[in-house]
């Protein structure tokens, strides 16, 4: 049962434009969501999170939006930079700190 889904395996955008990465979930009991970023040959690193009591959280160029009625969240990166090229995972806590991850979206930002 894939409770957290990222349906777009890859995304390519031009430098300076907006990147929008999407994530859907099925469990309405999730109360917190996180985005992790992963470069090749490195472990995932925490990027940004959002509580289910909010619909938006912003940190510099990164903004996460949460639509609880649609069970959907998205990560916006503005402006996109070549260094943002990585795999992005959305995740939700399952209890006791355990995270359930989506399949990941590979973002390529072209100079």
């Amino acid at each position, binding site marked *: 049962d894939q409770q*957290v889904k*990222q349906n777009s*395996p890859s995304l390519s955008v031009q430098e300076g434009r907006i990147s929008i990465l999407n994530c859907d979930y099925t469990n309405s009991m999730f*109360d*917190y969501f*996180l985005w*992790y970023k992963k470069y090749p*040959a*490195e*472990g*995932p*690193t*925490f990027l940004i*999170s959002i*509580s289910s009591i909010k619909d938006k959280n912003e940190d510099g160029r990164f903004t996460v939006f949460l639509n609880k009625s649609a069970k959907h969240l998205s990560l916006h990166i503005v402006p996109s930079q070549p260094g943002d090229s990585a795999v992005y*995972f959305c*995740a939700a*806590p399952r*209890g*006791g*700190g*355990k*995270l*359930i*991850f*989506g*399949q*990941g979206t590979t973002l390529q930002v072209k100079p």
Partner: protein
Amino acid sequence: EAGVAQSPRYKIIEKRQSVAFWCNPISGHATLYWYQQILGQGPKLLIQFQNNGVVDDSQLPKDRFSAERLKGVDSTLKIQPAKLEDSAVYLCASSLRGAGNEKLFFGSGTQLSVL
């Protein structure tokens, strides 16, 4: 602050052989996780430790996988015997308490290829 350390970085073995991975979490972190990431998929939890006790090993294939966290610090994950489908990156992560909204800190992982 030192991050999560893992070794080896890469390992190539033949099927039916055994292999072991080592993890040293961030100092003071009580909770340690082992995740398996198969190419094209997200990380999947194998086992969670709280100090030196197992909290959740429901997704660990116990007929071939084993893990321990002696003294509540370092941890080892072993596969014996390995199968082709075990080819993946094995990620170790740690967190301070294992509370619901805590960030997990990941090591760089061990990439295992089973031939």
